[in-house]
Each structure stands twice: as C-alpha cells, then as structure tokens.
C-alpha cells in the first residue's frame, strides 16, 4: 500500500484478510521451531528421551539398580547386561536409567525455586527502583561475586553431604542470575508506552507487573532457564562426584562416575555410560536453549 493517505479499497482489504493467517497456535510455533534447524530436533529428541527416563526409568530398568550381585561383578557389556556391570555386579544400564530422575529432578527443583525467587526479587527491584533496587541488587552482587561451583561447594560442605543440601546450595547460587535478568527487563519495559498507558488508566502496580510486565519477560526467562538446566545438571553431578551430593548407592550419574574412577582401567564401560548419559542430557538442553534463543529473539538470529 504505497498510496498511504487513501482509504483502503475493498480489494486491498480483501487481500489483507486473505493473507492474514489463522491465529497461530502453540503447535504452529513448535513446528516452526523444529523446522528452523535440525539441531533443534536433536535437542528436543534428547530431552524427550531423558525426561522419559526420569519418569519411567526405574520402572523399566531390566535389573535392580541398587541390589548387589557380586557373582557378576565388572562384567563387560553382554546381551544380559547391555552396559556391563559395576564392581558390585549391579547392572549399569539399570543404574543409568534410574539415574535420570536424580539429575533432572534436582535441576528442576533448583531452577523452579531460583526462577520464582529471582523473578520476584527482580520484579520488585526493577519496578520499585530507588533504595529498594539498590539494596536488592547489591545483595545479588554478593552472591554473584563467587564462582558458582565454589560457593555451592562451600554451602554443601558446611550443611552436610546430602542431595537436599546440594539443592539448597545450587538454588542459592542461581537465583541472583534471574533477579538480574528480570530486573533488566523490567527497567526496559516499564518505560514502554503500553505500560505507561496501563498506568494512565489507573492500573495498580500489581496488575501492571502481573499482566503487562511479567508476560513480556517470559521469553528471556525461558531461554535462560533452558540453558541453565544443563549447568545445573553438570553442577549437581560435579558436586556428587566430589562426594557432596548424592551418596552411594544412589545411582546418580556423578556418584557413579566417582565410583568408576578406581576401575576405569579394567572396566571402560563402567565410566563410559554414566558420563555419556550426562553429556547427552546437557547437550540436549544446550541445543534447545540455543535454538530457543534464536527462535524467540530475532535480533540474535545471526549468532
């Protein structure tokens, strides 16, 4: 319509109507996302596999993942034990399958709390501004002043060596990132016209934050969240590896790798499969996170 200023003719209106697509559904978005890059498909596939294992892995495991059976210790992969057995004769495939729920479950809990707390703090800091903002942001600075793994290590070490304490430690490490992220978004959004408009018609701060600002920060949060699942899974298994998280005989992947360390020269399968599961899980989330970032933010499409 180069002749602006003229009222649109019926013809242009008709073409506009015909061209305007039907409302996009979630399914459309998912299809577009998968079509964008084969890597996105790989990421979604990997995540689906490991989510499935997290839900049903222990049920479907062919052998008992905990019960020792010393008669078959350190067996190489065979038709009975696809991934071989460990030093107590436990089936490694069963242990890897049962392990998914620890890594993913822990990551899920950590990040849920971190996102809730971080978003809450970020919304308040960004919207309130002034002294409240200053105080809250300096608080996040403190937590961000430590490399994540080191702070988590100190917290987990002082609280005691359990998986629950690993959750506490990693949550303490992750929430400030979300507070920062959300605050930045709020600062940018709250000057926008649609927020000003909402304020002008007398919407309460709560409504503005909940209805107008929060929904617009979701995309950024989701991308960050997806990328962080990978980090959280790695951090959890890393802490377990040094003996701070899950304790044996829990079939957590990091704990298994720690156990395999002593035997890796005589039993390559023992260390290979838990590590592979760990790598593929993290890879899945990294691929999805990268894909989502490109998909949701056209500005970074070239990256």
């Amino acid at each position, binding site marked *: 319509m180069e002749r602006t200023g003229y009222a649109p003719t019926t013809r242009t209106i008709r073409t506009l109507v015909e061209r305007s697509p039907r409302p996009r559904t979630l399914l459309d978005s998912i299809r577009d996302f998968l079509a964008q890059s084969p890597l996105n498909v790989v990421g979604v596939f990997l995540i689906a596999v490991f989510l499935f294992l997290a839900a049903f892995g222990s049920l479907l495991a062919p052998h008992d993942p905990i019960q020792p059976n010393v008669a078959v210790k350190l067996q190489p992969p065979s038709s009975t034990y696809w991934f071989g057995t460990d030093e107590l004769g436990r089936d490694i495939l069963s242990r890897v399958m049962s392990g998914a729920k620890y890594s993913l479950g822990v990551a899920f809990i950590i990040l849920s709390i971190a996102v809730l707390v971080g978003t809450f703090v970020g919304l308040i800091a960004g919207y309130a501004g002034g002294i409240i903002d200053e105080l809250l942001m300096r608080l996040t600075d403190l937590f961000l002043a430590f*490399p994540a793994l080191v702070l988590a*290590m100190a917290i987990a*070490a002082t609280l005691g060596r359990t998986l629950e304490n690993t959750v506490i430690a990693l949550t303490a490490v992750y929430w400030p990132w979300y507070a920062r992220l959300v605050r930045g978004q709020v600062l940018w959004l709250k000057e926008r016209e649609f927020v000003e408009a909402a304020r002008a018609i007398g919407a309460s701060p709560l409504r503005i934050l909940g209805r107008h600002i929060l929904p617009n920060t979701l995309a950024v949060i989701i991308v960050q969240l997806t990328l962080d699942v990978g980090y959280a899974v790695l951090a959890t298994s890393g802490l377990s590896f*040094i003996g701070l998280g899950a304790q044996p005989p829990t079939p957590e992947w*990091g704990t298994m*790798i720690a156990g395999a360390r002593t035997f890796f020269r005589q039993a390559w399968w023992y260390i290979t499969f838990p590590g592979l599961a760990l*790598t593929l899980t993290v890879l899945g989330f990294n691929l999805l996170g990268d894909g989502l970032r490109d998909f949701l933010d056209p500005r970074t499409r070239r990256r």
Partner: protein
Amino acid sequence: MIVQLIVRRLFFLVFVLLGLSLITFVLSHVVPRDPARIIAGPRASPEAVEKIRKEYGLDQPLWRQYVRYLNGLIRFDFGKSLTSRRPVAEDLARYLPATLELALYAMLFAVAVGIPLGVLSAVRRNSLLDLFGRTISILGLSIPSFWLALILQFFLFAQLGLLPDGQRLPVGVREPPRVTGLFTVDALLAGNFSLFLLALKHLLMPSLVLGLAALAIVTRMVRSGMLEVLGQDYIRTARAKGLQPHVVIWRHALKNALLPAVTVIGLQFGLLLGGAVLVEIIFSWPGIGRYAFQAIQNFDYNAVISVTLVIGAAYVLVNLLVDIIYVLLDPRIRVT
C-alpha cells in the same frame, strides 16, 4: 574519568569483599557440628572443649566473633586448619600458585584456540570449519569436565603413555627454585629448559580439560562478534579501498569484535578457578581445589571456607581488572 571509574570500582570492591567475608562467616556458623568439639577431638572432656571454646573466642557474641574474624582477614589470618593445625594462610600460599598456573594455561589454551577458531568460523560461515567451531562451542559446554578428564587419562596415559596422569612434576624431580611458584616460569628463570618442558607436559592434559568450557564460550563470543562486525559499513569501505582481506579481518574487524568478548573472557578466568576443583582432584594437582576437597573430606570447615573466600576475592579482583582493561580498550567510554 578513568580514575573516577577505577575509584568507584575500588569502593565497590571493598564492599564486595566485606560481603564475601560476611557470607563465609555465616557459613562457618551454620555448620551443624560444634567447632570447639572438632578442634578438641571426639574424646576430649567437656572441660577441655569449653577451654578451647574460650581460647578460640567461640563463646563470644556473634558480632564480636565477626569483628575478630575480619580483623584476622585483614592480616591474611584465616585461622588454623582444624585438622593440620597449621595456619590456613600458609597452606593457601603453598597451593595457590599451582592453581593459578593451571588456570592461566587453561585460559591461554581457550584464547589461543578460541579466537582464531571464532574468527575463521565467522569468515567462512557454514563451511566445514564453521561446523567444527560450532560443535566445539556446544559440546565444550556439555561434556562434564571430570568425566572428560578420566577418559583422556585412560587414553593418553594408560593406553598410549603419551602424557603423565597427574602431578606437577614426576616423583623425585626437584622443583625449580621458587620465584613465582609457577613451575614453567620458575624453570625458565632458572635457565632449565628441560624442566620447563617437563612441567609443560604435566600441564597439558589438565589445562586442556579445564579450558574446554572456556574455549567453547570464547569461540562462540568471537564468532558472533565477528559476524556482527563483518556486516558493517566500515568493513565494506575497508574492502572497497582494496585492503588485503586478512588485514580487514584480523586488524579492522577483530579489534571491534573482541571488545564485547573481553568481559566474557575475563569472567571465564574466575570460572576456571572454580572449575579447577574437579580437575585438580582427578589429576592429583596440588592446588587449592584439591586442598578444599581434602578439607571437605576431613570436615575441616575453616579451610573450606577460606578457599571459598580466596577464590571469591580472586574472582572479584579479576573482574575489576577486566573492567579497567575494557575501559582502556574502548575509546567511547574514555571520552564520555
């Protein structure tokens, strides 16, 4: 302007360090075990425990204890290791150079490989090399370092015998006379080139494993920065002037593409210090990471918390340095 900025950052540094000490202090007081009991040992009488409580000031109100703790920190007094009974500061001084050397070489690896790889990846976009660069930048962040370390140890040491499986030098080889505490530097200073090579050989596997995640991030940052810069007008102008392509890419484009990467690269160094814990354990590397690990095993909270504090402080300092470098590099900030 620069001075003002640096002064402001230094103020902030003091604040952060105070905060760090507060966090570590709080941590040392949520310990579920009675510190006096740990020091006294499990079989000490209640009187002996009380005596130690007095001696270490553990019976005083919390704020007094904090002031005391701060007072110590200012003089680099981190208290005594609860197990070795040596001052923690002494242990840290002994183990820190090993960690620094490891982190430096890891960083060197990440930058020396990551920058060229990122540049070439961007210049020959969608080529085989680009595919390789992008694979590295995703896989490097996905492979758990402790697992990769064990796998490499299996192949490069146990199977092929190419590289040593750990330690800074073979057992029985004398360390170079200590100047910096970095073996490669000290060996060169002593003019002992074969010792330098030996130390380098020991550094190779651990620093590669430690640096992989940083390599991934550097490659990605440089690649995306280059892609952005290469599309800009001044690059077209430079090309139109007939400048050699490599001059345009390596001098004109890279300079501007690196700017945003500097901050990220700086942050990596702090993360390397953190990641060193896992790598040091596997390669029996006598740094503060392994020291912290052993302290955890022995419930030596004082040592664990001191390591946390030191790494936190190092992290903050490095970030300050990076900020200053950034300001010096970016003329736009200098004038405003």
